[in-house]
């Protein structure tokens, strides 16, 4: 009895990065806000790359509250989709290029989302991480936190509920 040899590191990295890239870069609104994701294993960190068009109050200046809301929601949806698809990506059942092409791949839909604004968003990059409190067959509950200079000084936090894609006959 011999254990299967672990895959070479580059193969694993390439597969995961290609899948994450397909999930993120195919969405116009994520490109519009210029949100990117850092990946360490299966852990994702959303990065809101600062740009002047994200400003809400030009006198302070501060990041628009709606941008912060969108950043937290995007981080929640991508983290949830990533967790939902991860096993299929790892097993080779789902090819990265099919993630946005395959009509049967659906994303979780936001049911509701609540944002607490804790500090004003400074005109610089922001980071967010989502924690899946529960992912059931139909509903998921996700909590998100966002920070800028110090991770322990959150500038916003959010929580939301999501309707999971229904297999095997996806709704249209």
């Amino acid at each position, binding site marked *: 009895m011999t254990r299967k040899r672990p895959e070479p590191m580059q193969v694993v990295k390439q597969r995961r990065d290609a899948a994450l890239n397909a999930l993120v870069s195919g969405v116009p609104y994520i490109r*519009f806000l210029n949100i990117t994701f850092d990946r360490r294993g299966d852990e994702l960190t959303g990065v809101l790359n600062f740009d002047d068009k994200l400003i809400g109050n*030009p006198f302070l200046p501060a990041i628009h*509250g709606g941008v912060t809301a969108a950043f937290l929601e995007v981080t929640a949806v991508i983290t949830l989709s990533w967790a939902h698809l991860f096993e299929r990506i790892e097993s080779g059942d789902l090819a990265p290029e099919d993630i946005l092409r395959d009509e049967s791949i659906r994303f979780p*839909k936001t049911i*509701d989302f*609540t944002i607490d604004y804790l500090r004003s968003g400074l005109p610089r990059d922001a980071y967010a991480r989502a924690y899946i409190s529960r992912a059931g067959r139909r509903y998921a509950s996700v909590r998100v936190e966002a920070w800028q200079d110090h991770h322990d000084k959150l500038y916003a936090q959010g929580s939301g509920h999501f309707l999971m894609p229904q297999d095997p006959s996806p709704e249209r």
Partner: protein
Amino acid sequence: MTDKAKLARQFIQAIPHAKALGLDLTHIAEGEAVITMPYNADLVGDPRTGVIHGGAVSAMMDTCCGAAVMSHPAAPGGTATIDLRIDYMRAATPGQAITTRATCYHITRNVAFVRAVATDDDTDRPVATAAGSFTVEGR
């Protein structure tokens, strides 16, 4: 148009992100604001359906709620969001503009309470609703 409404309108038009979203403030007075966001392919959440991303709807609703607070007769000046909850009823129809109507229904010295509804061309079926609390800032 009252001075305060004029000021609020100028303020909204000076917001870089409101400009990026193409927001158009069509009504603002007495604690009520209406903002329209035209359909824009850059704001799509799923390229296969062409449906606008919920985040863009959130950004519009947040702006509209803030405008409603600023236009309230008892609001002395600016405002910032304390908390905002958005409920998504359905996907907005691709190709159609989304319009939000926000009402500041109660205001104290420190806090303003706001509700908002977003619809597309089918105004009987809301796309999303929002409820939030906002700060009341001095001049």
